[in-house]
């Protein structure tokens, strides 16, 4: 009965590869988010979708592309992985946007070799 689930939990890969992280929520929320937690522990928003429409697109390299096939899913695809992409990526969801309390997944730890 996990509310926000992300797969995989861990991802170890080589520089230059392409990888995807999947996220699904069963809360019936209409807004989903991707955050990156870097080595300094700051949680920074990358993208947000509301009813499958992109509403937040922070300054993120073009190598990162979110995709929302429906309002319960938000996937993150990363091309040409770089060392600096190593981080923990969190998916979250909320009902509506506007900073309402967001429910987070448990994170995906991405390590680039």
């Amino acid at each position, binding site marked *: 009965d996990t509310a926000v689930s992300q797969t995989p939990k861990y991802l170890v890969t080589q520089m230059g590869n392409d990888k995807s992280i999947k996220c699904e929520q069963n809360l019936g929320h209409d807004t989903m988010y991707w955050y990156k937690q870097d080595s300094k522990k700051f949680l920074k928003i990358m993208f947000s979708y509301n009813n499958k429409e992109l509403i937040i697109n922070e300054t993120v390299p073009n190598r990162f592309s979110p995709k929302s096939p429906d309002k319960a899913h938000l996937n993150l695809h990363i091309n040409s992985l770089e060392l600096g992409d190593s981080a923990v990526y969190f998916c979250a969801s909320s009902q509506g946007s506007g*900073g309402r*309390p967001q429910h987070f997944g448990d994170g995906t730890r991405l390590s680039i070799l």
Partner: protein
Amino acid sequence: DQQVKQNSPSLSVQEGRISILNCDYTNSMFDYFLWYKKYPAEGPTFLISISSIKDKNEDGRFTVFLNKSAKHLSLHIVPSQPGDSAVYFCAARGLQGAQKLVFGQGTRLTINP
């Protein structure tokens, strides 16, 4: 330019005593503030929030205080329990209707028996 700062990376408190976690912000347009709690290998979970029109909000053992003139908020936990040991993040929302939250870097709270 980090707009939300938690200047104490860690805090250690005796069980049963009060824990006070602090957060400072720089943007006077923030109008809604939240506290999240995070256990290792899990996502942040929402704890308590406060609107800028209030200066205090209480929920059981947790109270958040907001001092707008000082651009400062604090989370009080009384009495502290071992299960409160976690990383606490404060977050702020921008203008009414703005979609994104800005997070601080977290404070690791340890409750000692």
